[in-house]
């Protein structure tokens, strides 16, 4: 029992509740929010280091032992995701201080921000499938609110669609849990893993596996269920898009990795090598094609989110140690990079007042730092060594060749190239060429926006140059995932 793993959920929850009281005083809200987020980030780093050294921690909430009570379980993967959540949360929070309008702040922006972090951290830390559903809902409710705050017509329309699709997928999630409960008689993930392993692998388990795949596919925006993402991520302010693009879809991917390494790891030839691998290839390819066809800063990046998700799922689909480690490393890289890029889109929008690439140009001359930051992030996402994107894609593609999955390896390579093309398109249109914004706009200062984002730029460089230790960490995580016996034993204490 260790109560410490409760804190990444508890701290943002209390902060959110307290911030409601100060809603009329934006300055006080910012101070409290900033302080709490810094404390939370520091604590999550400590927790991750502790878990890396001393092994995973569990907490039976309320003293009700597993598998009867709700269990929180923090292994290395969960701890890593919590750290990334906190870093992204911290960066986006400080970016919000400079960009979020006071009117939005008065409409409970910061409380919802912290409730979102609560939901995301909770989803990573829980060891109970039904509790995962609950934390998904906490996260989604906060995300509806954040998406609609400001109340422009576009936001209202797209949030409505976003809410409907998510309510539908939550319904499917509940159905899937009910199916699994009726088959295995438990909702504790470790207990489920044990019991599903003892069962005969009949058709019903495949059906349930596919149902879970659909649920997390909608949440994580995979082929063919990603249609909701580009438009709904386009409406809200850049910082919210950045937070969502960095975190929310990854919660779906995390849940999929968790469920398909822990519970549904018996029929790999079908679920992983056919279902997930095919979805991964198509997600990558169609996502990037969407990006290549668009001429809008934010929309291109939104399509890239989809495309990049394919790489993570590809690692899960190949299901070897190297591939999973690649997927884990790629997920960390992606959360950092994608948030950074979307923050750059916000900065560019603040200067030029538009996200339409054809109306932008010449930002390199007037805002050189923004341009170089963007270039580093863009090269990283395209996979140019020695930045972090390369070390994410390389092991994935090597693993694909080792497994003789040539098709998906080639798709991944082609997608990398197309990613580079679409990123260079943004760079050429928005940063090179004739200056299209006015002299006044050229004077707009974006230092307050670039300062938080610079943390992410430094991180991607660090992740690239320090690939060896980070990748060793990812391999440790992958090893844990491939041998779930340790997880099961720690949770069930047998």
């Amino acid at each position, binding site marked *: 029992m260790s*109560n410490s793993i*409760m804190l990444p959920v508890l701290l943002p929850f209390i902060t959110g509740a307290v911030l409601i*009281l100060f809603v009329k005083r934006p300055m006080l809200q910012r101070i409290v929010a900033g302080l709490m987020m810094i404390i939370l980030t520091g604590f999550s780093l400590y927790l991750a280091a502790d878990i890396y050294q001393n092994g995973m921690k569990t907490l039976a909430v309320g003293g009700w032992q597993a598998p009867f009570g709700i269990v929180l379980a923090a292994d290395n993967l969960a701890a890593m995701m919590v750290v990334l959540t906190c870093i992204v949360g911290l960066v986006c929070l400080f970016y919000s201080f400079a960009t979020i309008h006071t009117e939005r702040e008065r409409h409970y922006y910061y409380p919802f921000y912290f409730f979102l972090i609560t939901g995301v951290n909770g989803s990573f830390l829980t060891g109970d499938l039904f509790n995962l559903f609950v934390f998904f809902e906490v996260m989604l409710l906060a995300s509806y609110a954040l998406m609609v705050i400001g109340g422009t017509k576009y936001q209202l329309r797209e949030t409505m669609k976003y809410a409907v699709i998510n309510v539908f997928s939550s319904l499917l999630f509940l159905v899937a849990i009910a199916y699994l409960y009726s088959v295995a008689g438990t909702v504790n993930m470790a207990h489920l893993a044990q019991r599903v392993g003892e069962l005969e692998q009949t058709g019903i388990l495949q059906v349930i596996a596919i149902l879970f795949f659909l649920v997390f596919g909608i949440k994580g925006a995979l082929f063919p269920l990603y249609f909701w993402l580009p438009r709904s991520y386009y409406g809200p302010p850049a910082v919210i898009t950045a937070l969502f693009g960095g975190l929310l879809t990854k919660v779906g991917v995390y849940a999929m990795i968790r469920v398909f390494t822990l519970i549904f790891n018996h029929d790999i030839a079908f679920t992983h090598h056919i279902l997930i691998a095919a979805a991964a290839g198509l997600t990558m390819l169609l996502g990037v094609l969407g990006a290549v066809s668009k001429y809008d800063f934010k929309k291109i990046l939104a399509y890239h989110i989809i495309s990049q998700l394919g790489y993570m799922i590809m690692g899960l689909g190949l299901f070897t140690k190297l591939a999973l480690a690649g997927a884990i490393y790629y997920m960390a890289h992606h959360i950092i990079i994608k948030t950074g890029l979307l923050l750059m889109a916000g900065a560019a929008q603040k200067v030029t007042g538009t996200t339409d690439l054809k109306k932008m140009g010449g930002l390199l001359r007037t805002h050189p730092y923004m341009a170089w930051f963007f270039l580093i992030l863009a090269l990283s996402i395209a996979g140019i060594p020695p930045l972090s994107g390369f070390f994410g894609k390389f092991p994935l593609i090597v693993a694909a060749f080792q497994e003789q999955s040539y098709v998906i390896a080639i798709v991944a390579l082609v997608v990398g190239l197309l990613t580079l093309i679409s990123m260079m398109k943004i760079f050429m249109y928005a940063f090179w060429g004739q200056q299209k914004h006015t002299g006044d706009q050229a004077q707009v200062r974006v230092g307050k926006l670039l300062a938080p984002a610079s943390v992410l730029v430094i991180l991607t460089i660090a992740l690239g140059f320090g690939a060896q230790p980070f990748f060793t960490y990812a391999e440790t995580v992958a090893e844990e995932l491939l041998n779930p016996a340790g997880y099961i034993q720690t949770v069930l204490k047998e």
Partner: protein
Amino acid sequence: MRFTREHDVMQRVWITVVICLLLAFSWYLFFAGHNRPGGGFIGGLMTASAIVLMYMFFGAKEAGRVMRLSYPVVISLGLLVAVVVGMIGLLAGDAFFTQYFDYVTLPLVGEIELTTAVPFDFGVYLVVVGATMAAIVTISEDED
């Protein structure tokens, strides 16, 4: 508000009685909740329905003056009460959300069970009242 009928005395008297009954019953439900059907959620909903009746028959202005509450603050306090009760476990060295209970004998009442689940449930109660009322009042204000 549409439903306000300033001069209908009988209606007002009866509604006042109904509101009192509803509030009393909602508290009964709240306290019944620990071992029998009821609890903070249902109690909170019923209290909210009583307050809504007040808004409907006495007008938003009058009811708002009587309530003198900002509902989001009620939500916030409810959340904090619930989580602080959960944290007793943290401070006592047990797991988070551990429930403590004891049987005590009080004069007049006799033996009753005192448990930390009740203040937790009261937090839930506050959240439900606050959330329901915040939603209804916000929507009704939209009309003007």
